[in-house]
């Protein structure tokens, strides 16, 4: 470890050196101006067929729309191959949802990490001193096996979905073939991985393929050295996040060594640091709106049109500032056109934050009361289907439309009392004010402590089962992920034999009841409305971990307290942004419930079979918002094995690539999909001839 600390470098909070030096020379742009790699409008006036009337404000080789896991990987890869690259992102900071993720990156196919752990070796810096978690046999992987796993028609999950069956074959073959190179690429760009430990959802279940990214706690935050301060990691104070890591990092001693902390910040900040260091240019606050093509449905993609999307600090009203600034291009014109000499890479995420679009998959989720994960971090444009919408306008095809409703895409969170219920975030990150509260994570155990009511104040399901989600597919005999004692046979009919599926089925559909049409639903949208956990003061005293104080709850419309049930109902109606109707049955529901508790029997939902029942009788009474979260997008643009977007005729749209959740047809959760697709897209985009 000492070896790394000897290296002389600036802390991560300072600007790394070396950005754009080559470009300063080649373009002669003013030193210190982040736009150095970009040509001004006058320089970019040369137009080609179909684009004559477009006024170009910037020009680069490769435009990457979105600075998350797919986008930053594509950008660095294209930059490594010599391209001038501009990342355009609507947010105030880079990282997308990678930044708030768990950073569990599942790749495989015999990737360098699997090989490292098979040999029992450490990482090159010597941080990883924990022994390998997996047996060599569990890591003994190859591309063919990985490909078979992720196209295995026979795996059916416990909600009855068949996630691998519908994966796009050419695209996932390319993914499997590029996993090894992408793992090495990430390692080469400052990403540190702990021991391989199982596999992430959708990554194939016959081998261990996933590992978390970590940093080591240290005196300063220094990506090159691999260290982060306790304050930046968010481990110094249980109630404090940081600008560096919106989600507090977690202990990773067991798979790395003492002092290791892991989560998406370790991954996102590392590759962001590398991107900036290598001279990738970044235009924040810039929402990508349209693709500009030679002709509406034919010819090359010429560039993009993008609008200014400033995000203001919730308390100060000032424009927010990214964690690092080197490489940023400060452009504030309302609408600009950016020309791509080689290609545009769409990596702007999925559609989970766009209720109109996502309702194409599940009409009930037209309900805007339920945002997508990380909406404070990402803002109103996060996951807004921009890639899908722009792609469709130039003739792109879609894939994987049926893969969203697998049961993994949306669910009920156990974190109550905050709009942003997927992730935790404490004060200390600039966007905390947008959520106002961290929320109270009551766990599944907490769901027997309250009654859950809909927008009219009626119960709708057995509360204890409400947060249940179907698990991933399993091989017969409880052989989930690598387990050498059991036989794993991809493509085998026994895997989905009726008897086995009867054993594993575990979806209780509480979510569907929560989203059902109720007495408060009105045409044409029939919104189901918000959901509320109702409980009394005895509940609070029974559950010492429920802290009904700031930062867990706040006066933000997601928590209410009152001395009578009637008053509580009135406060919710007055104070919650999506409570459109009175909770007119709430008092009656509570009365009825107390009768059920006294009788020890709940004739409506048979709660007595699942847990204790408690009267709601002692003031003050409380209400916490229960949130439905739509997280993944598995449907999106259709791509071939080069991550080129294809049209409805199966023809490549020249100059257009996509990766991550902008792409459909691969129901793999998490980062492994985005990084590899970004790597492939960046590789091929950089190789395009100059237009």
């Amino acid at each position, binding site marked *: 470890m000492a070896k790394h600390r000897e290296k002389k470098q600036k802390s991560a909070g300072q600007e790394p050196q070396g950005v754009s030096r080559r470009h300063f020379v080649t373009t002669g742009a003013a030193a210190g101006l982040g736009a150095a790699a970009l040509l001004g409008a006058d320089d970019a006036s040369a137009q080609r067929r179909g684009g004559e009337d477009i006024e170009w404000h910037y020009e680069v080789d490769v435009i990457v729309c979105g600075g998350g896991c797919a986008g930053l990987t594509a950008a660095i890869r294209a930059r490594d191959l010599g391209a001038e690259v501009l990342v355009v992102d609507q947010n105030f900071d880079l990282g997308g949802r990678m930044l708030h993720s*768990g950073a569990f990156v599942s790749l495989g196919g015999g990737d360098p990490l699997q090989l490292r752990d098979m040999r029992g070796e450490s990482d090159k810096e010597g941080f990883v001193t924990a*022994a390998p978690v997996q047996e060599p046999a569990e890591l003994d992987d190859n591309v063919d096996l990985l490909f078979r796993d992720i196209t295995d028609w026979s795996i059916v999950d416990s909600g009855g979905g068949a996630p691998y069956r519908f994966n796009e074959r050419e695209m996932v073959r390319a993914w499997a073939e590029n996993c090894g190179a992408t793992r090495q690429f990430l390692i080469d760009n400052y990403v540190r991985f702990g021991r391989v430990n*199982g596999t992430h959802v959708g990554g194939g279940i016959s081998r261990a393929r996933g590992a978390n990214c970590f940093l080591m706690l240290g005196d300063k935050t220094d990506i090159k050295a691999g260290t982060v301060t306790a304050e930046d990691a968010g481990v110094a104070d249980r109630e404090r996040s940081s600008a560096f890591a919106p989600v507090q990092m977690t202990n990773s001693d*067991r798979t790395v060594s003492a002092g290791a902390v892991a989560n998406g910040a370790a991954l996102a900040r590392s590759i962001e640091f590398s991107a900036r260091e290598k001279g990738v240019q970044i235009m924040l606050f810039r929402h990508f709106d349209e693709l500009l093509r030679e002709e509406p449905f034919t010819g090359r993609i010429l560039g993009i049109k993008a609008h200014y999307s400033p995000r203001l600090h919730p308390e100060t009203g000032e424009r927010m500032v990214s964690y690092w600034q080197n490489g940023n291009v400060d452009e504030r014109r309302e609408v600009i056109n950016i020309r791509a000499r080689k290609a545009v890479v769409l990596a702007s995420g999925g559609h989970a934050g766009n209720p109109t679009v996502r309702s194409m998959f599940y009409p009930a989720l037209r309900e805007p009361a339920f945002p997508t994960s990380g909406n404070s971090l990402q803002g109103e444009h996060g996951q807004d289907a921009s890639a899908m919408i722009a792609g469709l306008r130039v003739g792109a095809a879609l894939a994987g439309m049926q893969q969203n409703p697998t049961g993994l895409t949306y669910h009920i969170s156990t974190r109550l009392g905050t709009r942003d219920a997927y992730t935790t975030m404490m004060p200390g990150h600039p966007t905390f004010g947008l959520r106002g509260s961290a929320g109270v994570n009551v766990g599944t155990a907490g769901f027997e402590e309250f009654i859950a009511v809909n927008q009219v104040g009626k119960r709708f399901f057995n509360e204890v089962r409400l947060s249940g989600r179907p698990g991933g597919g399993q091989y017969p005999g409880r052989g989930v992920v690598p387990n050498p*004692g059991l036989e794993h046979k991809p493509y085998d009919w026994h895997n989905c034999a009726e008897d086995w599926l009867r054993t594993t089925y575990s979806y209780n559909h509480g979510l569907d009841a929560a989203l059902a049409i109720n007495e408060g639903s009105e045409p044409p949208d029939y919104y189901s409305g918000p959901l509320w956990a109702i409980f009394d003061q005895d509940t609070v005293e029974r559950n010492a971990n429920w802290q009904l104080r700031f930062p867990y709850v706040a006066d933000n419309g997601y928590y209410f307290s009152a001395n009578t049930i009637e008053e509580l109902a009135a406060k919710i109606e007055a104070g919650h942004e999506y409570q459109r109707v009175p909770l007119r049955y709430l008092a009656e529901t509570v009365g009825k419930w107390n009768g059920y508790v006294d009788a020890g029997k709940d004739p409506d939902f048979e709660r007595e079979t699942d847990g204790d029942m408690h009267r709601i009788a002692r003031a003050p009474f409380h209400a916490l918002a229960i949130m439905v979260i739509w997280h993944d997008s598995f449907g999106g643009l259709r791509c071939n094995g080069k991550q080129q977007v294809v049209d409805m005729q199966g023809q490549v749209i020249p100059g257009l690539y996509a990766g991550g959740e902008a792409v459909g047809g691969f129901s793999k959760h998490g980062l492994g999909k985005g990084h590899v697709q970004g790597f492939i897209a960046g590789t091929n985009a950089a190789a395009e001839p100059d237009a």
Partner: protein
Amino acid sequence: MPERPVARPVRSARMIGMALSALGLATAIPATADDAMASIRAGVYTEAQANRGAYSYPVACGKCHGYLLDGAPDDPDMFSTPPIGGPKFLRNWKGRSLGALFEYTKTTMPFNNPGFLGDQELADVLAYMLQQSGAPAGEVELRPDPERLGRILIEAGS
């Protein structure tokens, strides 16, 4: 935290068979006339062992079951889970043995990587779960011996 060699999972077909039997008979207590049944309240683990278990817990269990053992995942990407500490956990498992819990956990957990913990380390984590559930520590460590574990009964809290 102490650095310890990591016990490697040993999974033979025999062990799996045993485990599945344990799963199938999870509510039966394998007591015979000669087997004295003990309670988790009789001091069946040591404080030092529970502390070792606390080291293994965050990565092996906490991502899904949470640092409070209450089923609130530490990693938001993970699914919500049942509590594995505290009164609700004890209630869910009461009447069954630590042997049943040991085999269930060994063969199915963590869900994304069953058998992640070796036998000794798993026993340490069970000790931690007992500690966090209010069961008192004693003088002797909880050993990863299925037969002995099968004679320790899980009882709900008072």
